[in-house]
């Protein structure tokens, strides 16, 4: 499974990318696709045994145990990312929480479940982005990259009943991404929210247990679209690579 293409001329070859929620679903697919294209990859997840599995599957990637919803874990995570990759070019905030499981109408949602969705989907990405912003700004100054990708959802834009906590937290993440992009543009750092579409992932199965997987996008395809976007952005930024 560890098939890196040494002759790859992908513009993400050597790009230093950190991915949260890297042991399942879209995050795992991103780890694999980027690793295959020759990127230097660090990924964050909560379960150590899953992390070891992914490190074995994609030898050379750096797995970092941590929970982005916990304030005091953010800087240790950030330090391990920049130590493992010797800096950072791209942060992908992918780790997500549904909030209440099973999904619930807002009026039936416990406040604590809303807070969990906000902590993981909004405040965690906010804190982690701040902690690695110096590294991303350094990447931009060096002419390499300096990009934050925040994974969002159609639930952020369309009012689906039952998706209140998740949808609201992703809507906040989306809007924060736009403001932050505006603020950081003079410094060369970009922030982009990307909706990969509904995918056949454990998260989706938790939300919609009786969905037909055949009707859902494969995480590998979602990851490929994001990597294609990264390749185009990177080719613009550093055409000599």
């Amino acid at each position, binding site marked *: 499974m560890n098939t890196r293409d040494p002759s790859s001329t992908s513009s993400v070859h050597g790009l230093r990318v950190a991915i949260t929620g890297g042991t399942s679903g879209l995050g795992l697919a991103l780890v694999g696709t980027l690793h295959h294209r020759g990127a230097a990859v660090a990924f964050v997840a909560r379960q150590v045994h899953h992390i070891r599995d992914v490190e074995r599957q994609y030898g050379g990637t750096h797995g970092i145990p941590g929970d982005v919803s916990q304030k*005091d874990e953010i800087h240790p995570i950030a*330090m391990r990312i*920049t*130590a493992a990759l010797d*800096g950072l070019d791209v942060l992908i905030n992918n780790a997500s929480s549904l909030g209440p499981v099973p999904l619930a109408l807002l009026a039936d949602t416990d406040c604590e479940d809303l807070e969990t969705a906000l902590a993981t989907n909004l405040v965690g990405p906010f804190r982690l982005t701040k902690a690695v912003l*110096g*590294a991303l700004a350094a990447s931009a100054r060096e002419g390499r990259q300096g990009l934050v990708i925040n994974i969002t959802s159609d639930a952020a834009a369309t009012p689906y009943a039952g998706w209140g906590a998740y949808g609201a937290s992703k809507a906040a993440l989306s809007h924060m991404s736009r403001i932050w992009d505006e*603020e950081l543009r003079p*410094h060369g750092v970009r922030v982009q929210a990307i909706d990969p579409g509904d995918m056949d992932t454990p998260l989706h199965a938790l939300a919609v247990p009786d969905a037909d997987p055949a009707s859902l996008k494969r995480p590998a395809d979602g990851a490929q679209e994001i990597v294609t976007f990264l390749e185009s952005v990177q080719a613009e930024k550093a055409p000599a690579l």
Partner: protein
Amino acid sequence: MKPAARPVQRPHDAKLLIVEADGRLRHAVRAQLACHLRAGDLLVANDAATIPASLSGLHKRSGAVIEIRLAGRGSLAADDVREFTAVAFGSGDHHTPTEERPPPPPLQAGDAMVLGPLRATVLRMLEHPRLVALRFAGTPDAVWAGIARHGKPIQYAYVAQSLAMWDVWTPLAARPVAFESPSAGFALDWKLLTALRAGGIELATLTHAAGISSTGDPALDAKMPFDEPYHLPRQTVLAIARTQARGGRVVALGTTVTRALEHAASSGEPLRSGAGVATQRIDAHTALRVVDAIVTGVHESGESHYELLRAFASDAVLEHARAALEQHGYRSHEFGDSVLLARQRPATPRPAPRAVDASQLLEQSRPRLGSHHDKRPPEGRPEKALAISAPHVTPYLIATCN
């Protein structure tokens, strides 16, 4: 002077004492630093993130409690984390002033230590019973995991509260290579960075492994600063060349930046980018080659930090500044107030800057001959000489200079 005792990097009332090139003093608000630099100046910051370098544990041979503070390593390479220079302490913690901490148990080469999840061995003693070369077992990832999990920021008794990592990382903190904060960088925030750009002041960075400030042992303190690796990016060398060509000042944000830049310039060749190890002391006998002004914290005379300032100004000027700091209640140490100290106008012009290879500059310029202190840069925004465009920001975010 009283140390700032609360770990607030940017108190709203943070002060800046400005010591001009002719020795005149001015008091200012540090948040308005951009107003006190000139268009065409270059501010160089240290983007090192701070390692939580204090590791507590057990010395196996004696069974005694020990605290290890990482204090140096050979390079900034990400996988160069198995061998460190370290200072050892006995029992106690930062609540006890360092000079009152008991010594560690007697140490010798081969001694093993258990520091949380980390396993360390003393490779050799470094001419002092508390100074060791240490080796960690495990892969670089495992060593970083251990430091991240078990390490605490080095701190001192004047701050009672236990520091979190977010207290000691500057807003530009990138790679984790500093053993203590490059705390002059606490003056920055992103609002100030935006104001610098709007004011035509360039920002550049280097990465320098800021060392520890004090061990509590005069003999050990006398050996400091230890050798400190740094990396000077090519973009920063080019920015310095542009700045010198247009008559702007190179302003070092902190002593670590000063040490790295002056070391890189010390070979006498044109300034070269890349990796280096700063081994020199800067003191009253140092002829500065690159740095024109320094923004630094407030420290007592007699400390090693103070020695570096003597390269910028005479003892008379420094004493005049010290009296003003004391009289106006400036707070000292890393969470305290700051000083912007310009290199004092020399009685004799300093040697011509080394000619810069014109092909390295991004736009046409001639190397300047003679002292560039005599010419002020043009008022307002220099035309085209600066490759900085005005950002699109909401006007209220730019601090007005009064």
